[in-house]
């Protein structure tokens, strides 16, 4: 039981809607978002591509920029954009 639950958890990945949300917010560029949250543009690119899972602090900062809850920006196990 716990083994199958463990497999279900480990097979999932962190995905996000950042790309979609940026376009919805006056076509905000990756550079603009990066400046606001205090990271490099490459980090935003990596997060959008799913190549990097941000820290909880950075995830909150990104969610605050879009004035949404964390679960509306990031999801665990869903398809990424």
């Amino acid at each position, binding site marked *: 039981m716990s083994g199958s639950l463990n497999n279900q958890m480990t097979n999932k990945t962190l995905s996000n809607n950042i790309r979609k949300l940026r376009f919805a917010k006056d076509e905000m560029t990756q550079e603009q978002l990066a400046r606001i949250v*205090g*990271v*490099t543009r*490459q*980090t935003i690119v*990596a997060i959008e*591509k*799913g*190549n*990097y899972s*941000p*820290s909880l602090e*950075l995830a909150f900062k990104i969610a605050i920029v879009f004035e949404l809850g964390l679960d509306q920006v990031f999801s665990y196990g869903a398809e990424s954009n």
Partner: protein
Amino acid sequence: MSYKEKQSLVSLVTTIIVSIPYLAYIFMRYQSGNYAAGEEVSFWAKAILVLIPLRIVMEIIISIIFSILSAIITRENTTDITDERDNLIELKGMRNSFLVFIIGFLVALISVALNNSVSTMFIIIFITGVVSELSDIFSKLYYYHKGV
């Protein structure tokens, strides 16, 4: 290519033009001289002690040249910020580098335990130093490219 990736390439260039030729030079000097047991240890200790500041100074000089050239070519402020992803990649690169160095150090100790000369131990440590440096650089380039 990001500024940090370019910085890793600068470190690679520094290793190629400083550490590897210095390593070759030291080997040649060692082979051309006859050293007594005590002198041998002193020779290798001096060789390593010279490499450390040489490497640091060259890295600083090459980094300054790189920053100036980068600013001229890209016309951007090259004082790029370091964020959490950069720190994570830095740590992972360092971890891989330490792992390589520990393995090399153990091999060096085993060589002494098997009654090889002290010079063999120093040669292994020297090569391990350069290889661990390269593993740090290539690890960073890999994580920047493939994700972390």
